[in-house]
């Protein structure tokens, strides 16, 4: 095909310019793919951190409980809920919790905290409390208490130290006090967790609050996390009623949803800026090539080449450059992405929206990133080539010959 041969050879006329244009396109593609991988990596990390640490992928709770964390808003009819959760095939594991604001008093200080009554065995499957434990042992007795390391520092307590927990019971609204021993110290990372949370045995908490078999939260993990945010999930339909609410993590933490949305928007903006810069480079390069060949186009038009054929040649030359850039860019992005997935990129520890981003961020490389960025680059290059192509197609032979001589 002569037009293909012509386009290919035209690109080789000025190899330096072609190479620079391809380098520009390749760089934009590689940066786009890797940045996308990084953003997906950070997003996943944030969601993982959120759902794995304490919140779970979904929760069942009393209507209104999450607004004020009022201990009186507890689920009292828990047996049917346990049965539904145990039989639901989407549910991998669940855990029950009782929560109440309380005062912790050591021999040296007092601190207001949020107490979580937990079942240690159930929690293993839904949270990272066990992994966060940096000292001591898990809760095995009714008098065991776990607390965050910075809270322990403020209370000036260590393993084995006694500590008094004061709260008010739900039934009767009586002040209740109980002595606990520090059995373990936790470090989750985010200061709002390590400063304010303490964990005791589930039954001990129920006894203190006098709520019988009641529960404030069922924390759920699914076989497939993506299902958690399906509004019409059958599990939610089965448990929701006037008293009971059930929501996925996106509804539970709308700020994370907003951040993910912003990340998606950021990806779009970054992609557009990168590709627009590349597009400007391509337009410049194509126009330089057209101006150099003005006389040639005039002659080819004079001998009977139709205008659209010349336009098609320009577009084809751009397409060849885009294809070469995509081929090289995809290879580079694949190898660099693979390396970064293994080694990570050291950016220092950060806390974003209460979620700790570890020191080394690893991108998540997906086939879609390569495909989407490649199509985007090819499409944009072709779009960019349209104007120069139109310009070349409209060249008036007599004028171009006069200007060139």
């Amino acid at each position, binding site marked *: 095909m002569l037009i293909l041969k012509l386009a290919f050879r035209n690109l080789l006329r000025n190899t330096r310019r072609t190479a620079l244009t391809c380098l520009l396109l390749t760089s934009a593609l590689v940066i786009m793919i890797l940045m996308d991988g990084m953003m997906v990596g950070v997003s996943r990390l944030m969601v993982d951190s959120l759902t794995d640490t304490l919140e779970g992928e979904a929760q069942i709770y009393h209507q209104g409980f999450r607004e004020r964390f009022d201990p009186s808003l507890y689920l009292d009819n828990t047996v049917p809920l346990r049965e539904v959760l145990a039989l639901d095939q989407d549910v991998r594991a669940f855990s029950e919790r009782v929560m109440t604001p309380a005062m912790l008093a050591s021999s040296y200080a007092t601190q207001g905290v949020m107490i979580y009554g937990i079942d240690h065995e159930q929690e293993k499957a839904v949270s990272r409390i066990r992994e966060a434990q940096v000292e001591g042992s898990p809760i095995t007795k009714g008098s065991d208490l776990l607390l965050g390391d910075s809270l322990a520092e403020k209370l000036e307590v260590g393993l084995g130290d006694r500590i008094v927990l004061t709260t008010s019971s739900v039934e009767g609204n009586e002040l209740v006090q109980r002595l606990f021993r520090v059995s373990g110290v936790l470090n989750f990372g985010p200061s709002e967790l390590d400063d304010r949370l303490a964990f005791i045995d589930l039954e001990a908490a129920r006894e203190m609050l006098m709520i019988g078999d009641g529960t404030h939260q069922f924390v759920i993990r699914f076989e497939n996390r993506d299902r958690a945010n399906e509004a019409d999930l059958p599990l939610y339909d089965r448990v929701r009623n006037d008293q009971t609410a059930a929501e996925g993590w996106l509804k539970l933490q709308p700020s994370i949803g907003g951040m993910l949305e912003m990340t998606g928007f950021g990806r779009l903006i970054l992609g557009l800026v990168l590709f627009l810069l590349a597009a400007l480079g391509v337009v410049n390069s194509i126009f330089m090539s057209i101006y150099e060949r003005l006389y040639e186009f005039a*002659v080819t038009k*004079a001998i*009977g080449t*139709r205008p659209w054929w010349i336009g098609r040649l320009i577009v084809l030359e751009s397409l060849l450059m885009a294809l070469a850039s995509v081929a090289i860019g995809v290879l580079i992005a694949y190898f660099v992405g693979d390396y970064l997935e293994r080694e990570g990129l050291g950016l220092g520890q950060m806390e974003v929206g209460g979620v700790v981003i570890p020191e080394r961020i690893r991108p998540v490389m997906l086939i879609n990133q390569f495909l989407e960025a490649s199509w985007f680059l090819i499409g944009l290059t072709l779009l960019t080539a349209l104007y120069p192509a139109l310009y070349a197609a409209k060249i008036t032979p007599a004028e171009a010959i006069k200007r060139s001589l």
Partner: protein
Amino acid sequence: MTEQETDTPVIYTDQVVRRFGEGAALVTAVGGVSLTVESGEFAALVGPSGSGKSTLLNLIGGLDDPDEGHIALAGMNLTSMSSAEMSDFRRDHIGFIFQSYNLIPVLSAAENIEYIMLLQGLAARDRRKRVDEMLKMVGLDGLGHRRPAELSGGQQQRVAVARAMASSPDIILADEPTANLDSKTGVALLETMRELNENEGVTFLFSTHDQKIIERARRLVWLEDGMVTKDEAPERL
């Protein structure tokens, strides 16, 4: 080559006017030229620089539009054609030879000749056969694989002649074809073109002030300030 009816001139222009610029800078490059060129002529538009000969040649070749007047080529009115129709008409009826940089530099001599036939949609086998014929005709047999940069100026212009001939046009318009050639090469090229005119009956119209062409043309149309000042008939020569 298309058969011309005996009573239809290859070129017919009627009071053609072409102006450039506006207001005080308005220049009339061609000021009402009426001209008829019959099939088989070997004619030249002659005149000093700025006399309007190249502009007139461009108008005749459909590369530019006249401000006034009518132009017909091979019996077809050029002024009423669309851009695409004009391209097809040039491809099928007119061969062009320009002063310099005439060929597509990234294509070989053979590919340059083949190019126009490709636009015409000829089959590959027919194209190759015609390319070989054309190369032989202009004395470049065996040099078809060379790119323009690997050919001398004279050889490049021969390829341009072959390309102009390849589509079997009614007329070949040559704008200063010898301007960039040395005297010996210029004469050789002109001899080739004259042979094509005499043996193949191809009509040639030159735009020139080159003495070599003036000496060989069988009709000279003298232009000055965009007007025909003298039209020397074949009998003179």
